Structures are given as structure tokens and as C-alpha cells.
């Protein structure tokens, strides 16, 4: 026969302060654990949703980011005319030859310098990334010294109001409008006409990358094989756009995860010790109670279960509290230099079902770890000694 849950519940309530302190401890640990997982998920989500499954990006072989990649104009022309590349309504391939550099702008409030990614694009770039839409001002005109800036840059950096001038390379550019890109990496970029930007950057005939839309997702292997086989495109390397962005997020997400896990595992020790202390005290205080229950006919197993359930309940409530606290962080957006691309990236804390599952699982694990030995002690008390103790 098992001990009713109401007994467990009332036992926790009887020692409110100790219970509350243990709860807060566990909630803090789960809070840190969950928010770190949410942050890592946020970085990945931001970058992965920047890529479209039907798009491919071509960089120079060995280049790990667009910033250090070089594709010559001749090579870009060969790449764009592959048969697998989708053709737009105007009969031109849906491909954007792009040039990428970073410029320094000062953050609002702190004067800290941020690395802003400037992307020179072809007109097709907007067909390739339909999530980009203007929210203020107007579109830059191709062939002019104008740029549009992502919403994150507009919100966080000085001198980026519409109409102000930004120096890019050797020339000044006017901010014509602000765009929003569905919380992807593009939100942290500045876009202008590639043919206009290249001379300003002193790179007349070298692009950074080519992004192209395929006729179908399945054409990926075909285009990869074709480019690898063509002797004129030997220095190019084709990747799915999503894969490229996943790689860009890798270092950052891994760093957050590894550091976060190390920290939370150490934290968990602290919280488990808190729970062990609480549960040992619970057992010591209730020795007579335990003896009475045993005398009434409850078995050792039932006692063990009751105490273990008490501990798990305690940590589960703490875990849910921590998770609720952590979910509040999803309103915060962080903007910092991404290690992978060496440029500013804004991302948020993203709650996913996986994060919830891991956090609650982690809490239950702490409950079991903290409650096991005290429960065993409770179960092993002999009836006589327990009843005799005062």
C-alpha cells in the first residue's frame, strides 16, 4: 500500500521556509540551465532561418565565411548560368552576386564599437530572401550611393537615422530606408548596390559570394557535381544556404552550450546538496512519524517512495518555477559579435519543446539525486528505535 500524496504535500508545507529555500535554489539552477539552452537555440534559430532550403551559396574553397571569400566576376557568370538555377520572370537567373565587408559603428549608449556587416547585393537578392521588407524610408536605388539598414542596426547604432551618411570604404553612403528580415541575421546588416559598393571597397572584379535559387531543392547534388566537374569553377565551393548559416552559428552556439553546461552541472551540485540537507532534516524530524507509519503497516518500500516522491515533487515545482522565470527572458534580445562571422548579430532567447523537456528532466534528476540517500535512510529505520526516539 502506498502512502497518500496528500501526506507528502502537507509535509512540504509544514516546513515552509526550508522548502521555499530549497525550491528557490532548484529554480535558480533550472533558470540558468534553461536560459543558456534558450540562448544557444536562439543563435542557431536566427542563423538557420536566415538560409532558405532552396538556395545555395557559393564561396571560395577553404573560405569559412563570406568575409574572407573571393569569387571572380568571370567565375560568377559561369556559376549563374548553370541549368539548375531558377529563372525569374524577366528571364534572368535568380542569383545575387554579393560583396561583404565589415565597418565599425558606435553603439548607442556605450560608444562601444560594433562590427556591422555591409552586403552589396544584386536586384535578385530580394527574390532570394523574400523575408526582407522595408519598414521605414524607401528602397535604395541601384546605381546610387544609397543603402538600407537592418532594424537591429537602426535600433542599436549611432548615426544610422534615415538621411544620415555612413562611410563605407572610400565613399559616403546615404541611409535611404530601414528593413526588417523576420529576425534573421540580415536584420543586423546594411545593404546596398554591389556594383556601386565594389569600387568604394577597392575590389573591382572580385565578389565575396554568389547566392542562387535552385529550380527544386533536389537539384543540389546535380549543381554541386556540375560545378566540381567544370575546370573553370575549380576554386568554388557550393553549399546549401542553410548549411552555411548553421556553420556560422556553430562556434557561438557550442561556446554557449559548453560553458553553460559546465556552469549548470556545478550549480546542480550546489542545489542537490541543498536538497540532500533538506531531505535528511525531513527524515530526522519525522522519525517518530515514520515509526508510526511502519507500525500501521506501511512497508519500507512505501516509505522510500514517499520520501523520493517528496524530493521529486520539490524539484519539479522548483523546475517549473525556473522555467517560467526563464521564459520571461524571451523578451530580451542580445546583440553581440558572432565568432563565426566576426560581425554583429542580434538574437533572442528561444524557448523550444526540447528546452522544456531537458530542463524538467534535469530538475527531476536533481530531485532523485538529492532525495535518494535520505529516503533510503528513512526506509531503513527500525520500527522500535524510531518510535522510541523523541
Amino acid at each position, binding site marked *: 500500500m502506498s502512502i497518500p500524496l496528500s501526506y507528502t504535500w502537507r509535509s512540504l508545507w509544514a516546513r515552509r*521556509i*526550508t522548502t521555499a*529555500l*530549497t525550491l*528557490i*535554489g532548484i529554480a*535558480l*539552477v533550472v*533558470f*540558468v540551465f534553461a536560459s543558456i539552452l534558450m*540562448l544557444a537555440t536562439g543563435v542557431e534559430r536566427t542563423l538557420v532561418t536566415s538560409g532558405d532550403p532552396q538556395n545555395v551559396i557559393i564561396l*571560395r574553397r*577553404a*573560405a*569559412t565565411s563570406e*568575409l*574572407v*571569400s*573571393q569569387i571572380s566576376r568571370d567565375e560568377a557568370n559561369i556559376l549563374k548560368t548553370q541549368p539548375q538555377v531558377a529563372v525569374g520572370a524577366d528571364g534572368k537567373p535568380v542569383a545575387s552576386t554579393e560583396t561583404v*565587408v*565589415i*565597418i*565599425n559603428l558606435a553603439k548607442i549608449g*556605450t560608444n*562601444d*564599437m*560594433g*562590427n556591422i556587416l555591409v552586403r552589396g547585393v544584386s536586384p535578385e537578392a530580394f527574390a532570394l530572401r523574400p523575408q526582407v521588407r522595408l519598414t521605414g524610408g524607401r528602397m535604395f536605388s541601384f546605381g546610387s550611393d544609397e543603402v538600407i539598414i537592418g532594424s537591429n542596426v537602426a535600433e542599436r547604432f549611432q548615426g544610422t537615422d534615415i538621411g544620415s551618411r555612413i*562611410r*563605407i*570604404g*572610400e565613399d559616403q553612403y546615404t541611409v535611404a530606408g530601414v528593413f526588417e528580415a523576420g529576425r534573421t541575421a540580415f536584420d543586423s546588416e546594411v545593404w546596398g548596390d554591389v556594383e556601386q559598393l565594389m569600387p568604394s*571597397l*577597392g575590389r*573591382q572584379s572580385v565578389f565575396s559570394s554568389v547566392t542562387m535559387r535552385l529550380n527544386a531543392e533536389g537539384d543540389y547534388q546535380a549543381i554541386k557535381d556540375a560545378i566540381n566537374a567544370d575546370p573553370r569553377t575549380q*576554386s568554388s565551393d557550393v553549399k546549401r544556404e542553410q548549411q552555411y548559416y548553421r556553420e556560422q552559428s*556553430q*562556434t557561438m552556439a557550442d561556446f554557449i552550450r559548453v*560553458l553553460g553546461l559546465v*556552469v549548470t552541472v*556545478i*550549480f546542480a*551540485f*550546489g*542545489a542537490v*546538496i*541543498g536538497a*540532500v*540537507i*533538506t531531505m*535528511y*532534516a525531513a527524515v530526522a524530524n519525522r522519525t517518530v512519524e515514520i515509526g508510526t507509519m511502519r507500525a500501521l503497516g506501511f512497508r519500507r518500500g512505501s516509505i522510500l517512495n514517499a520520501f523520493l516522491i517528496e524530493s521529486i515533487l520539490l524539484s519539479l515545482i522548483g523546475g517549473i518555477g525556473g522555467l517560467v522565470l526563464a521564459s520571461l527572458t524571451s523578451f530580451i534580445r*542580445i*546583440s*553581440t*559579435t558572432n565568432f563565426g562571422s566576426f560581425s554583429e548579430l542580434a538574437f533572442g532567447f528561444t524557448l523550444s519543446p526540447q528546452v522544456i523537456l531537458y530542463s524538467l528532466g534535469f530538475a527531476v534528476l536533481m530531485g532523485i539525486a538529492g532525495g535518494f540517500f535520505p529516503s533510503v535512510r528513512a526506509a531503513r529505520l527500525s520500527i522500535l528505535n524510531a518510535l522510541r526516539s523523541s
Partner: protein
Amino acid sequence: MFVLKLILKNAGRHKLRTALTILGIAIAVMSFVFLRTIVTAWSYGVEASAANRMISRHSVSFIFPLPLAYRDQIARVPGVEAISFANWFGGVFKDPADFKNFFPRLAVDAETYFDVYPEYLVPPDQMAEFQKERNACIVGEKLSREHGFKIGDIIPVEGDIYPGQWEFVVRGIYKGKDPTADETQMFFHWKYLDERMTQEENGRAGAIGWFIFRVTDPAAMPAVARTVDDQYRNSRAGTKTETEREFQQSFVSMSSAIISSLEAISLVIIGIILLVLANTIVMSARERTREYAVLKTLGFSPGHVVGLIGGESLMIGLLGGVLGLILAYPVVAAFAQAFPTFFPVFNVAPWTLALAVGVALLAAIVAALFPVFRALRISIAEGLRTIG
């Protein structure tokens, strides 16, 4: 003396509980020290910068090159002593996905670079060998240990910013003059880079990344910066000149969000220390409510009770804190061993230790507050009636 004895006896009554509490605090203090060390290591470059060095780079961002021709013009600015320059080479060594294989590779002016950085010590015979060979390089002591580079080894690098296959022969290994010097870099001849650029991509020849120069008087630095930047204000490549410290600081502040979150986490750790300790002290004080009443009946003043509770809390907090510091050293050393090039310098700073102990003691005082107030407020009769 009597109170001290009672505190010791009290702490020993629940040996397991006291031991667990000390362990809990020790672990929290250890992670506190570890996190603070990471924060310190992040800004090591700022600490390691020399007071009399300045850096000039392109005003738009440091990825844009400056013409080498600026060197002689900057050298003529009054107050500038010695000048050198460097280029970020980048490139891919082995598998780029493994962070271990990322280390700074700089093309430097072989003749002058080590004059401007006297903290990098190269044995004279190795330096002579390095100077003689165009594709020679010098690597840091820490880097050479990490990858097993020996004199005469060839380091193959696939270029990204400077495309092509590159090979560098190790001709020297430098050591840092003091523990704050970065021993994870690789330096090679800028002339080697420039020769290949002249042949392969002529437009990129004669370009350098940034100038480093020493000034005679650190007080004159703002004036020197202004003079240099004014010289190029209207040229195609403007400069931004700042002290080495500011230059390094601008890199650190790029990741300011990460540093602030690490700092936030270390605050949460303080919270955890407090909770573990408060839990134990509240619990013990509650169990002893009757004893405190007895003590008061016997004529002990409330001050004694405060001393008993507070003293036990301070003792446990201090023991946990000291144990945590002792544990922190092997953990920091193990991390430094496992990722030698992750942070160029990874040491526990003395003030981190002081801070950690201070935090543990502060937590001990706060943890004792509530039970102390309770013990003071409760009347003797009430205390005696309590069943703990």
C-alpha cells in the same frame, strides 16, 4: 572563548549536514572563481598592452588595408620612436571546425616587429635564422606545445583572405617576458606575403593591416593620434589611431554581451551560496530554539545568541570559501591544459580570490540575519514551549 567552543560543538552536531554545506559552498565558490577567471582572461589583451604603444588602422574597420607608404610619414611625426606593421593573414590550418586549429597568423615586418614588442623573447641564433629565410616563421611557446611544432617543421596553411597553399618553416620559438604575454601567435615575413601578392594579385601588393609604434612620452599620445589622423583625413584611406589599450578594449567590447552574461551568472552563484548556507543555518537555529531559550534563562545575553548563530554561519562560510579556492586551482589549471590556445593567458587573478572569500563571508552574514532576528524576537517562555 566559551562561545567559540559552543559554535564548534554546534557545527559538529550534524556532521553530515555541516560537511555537505561546506562542500556546497566550496563548489559554488570554485565556479565563481572559474567564471571570474574567464572574464579576466577575455580582457587579457587590455592588461597586456604596453603604456607607450599606439596602433593605427583604417578608419572604416580593420579589415581594410593601409598603404605601406604611410610608414615613413607616421615615423616622422614628432614623438614617434619606433614603428612596425602587421597584417592579419587568417587562413585554414587542418580542420577549421576544431577550435584548437585557430590561432593568430600574422604577416609582420621581420626587421622591426620584435623591437616594438620587446616582451616577445626570441633566442638570438633563432632570430638570425628567421631573418635569413623568406618563408620562415616564429611561433609562440604555448602554440608550439599545443601542436608539437619544432624548429624546422613546416606549417601548411590554406589561404582564405590570401588564396592559395602556403608553407611556413618554423625557425624560432618565442617566449613571453612575463605571464601576461600572449604565446599563441605565429609571425612570418610580410615580404613573403607581399611578393606572392605582387605576382598573383597585383592590386593587393604594398598593403598592410595596421601600424604599431612606440612613443617617447605616453602623455603625448592624444596629440600624436590627432596629428597622424589629421594627416590622412582627406585621403582615400583614412586612419584611426589609438593607444594599444583602447585598440584591445574595442575587441573586448565586441563581446560585451557575453561578458555581461558571465557576470550575471556569477551573481546567481552568489545567490546559490546564500541559499545553501541559509537553509542550513535556518534549519539548525529552528531545531535549537529551545536551547537558546535555556541559554537566555541561564542569563546569557541576546548578544551571545547572535554570536552563536552568526559565528556558526561565518565559520561554515569561511571554510567553504577556502575549500572552494583550493579546489579552483586544479580546475583552472585543467581548463588551461585542455584548451591551451582558447585564451592566450588564463590565470587566477589575486583580486578574484579576495572577491570570492568576501562573497562567501557576505553570504554567511546575510544567511544568519533571519534566524538571528527570530531568535531575538522569540520570548523565553515561547522558546521553551517550542517542539523542534
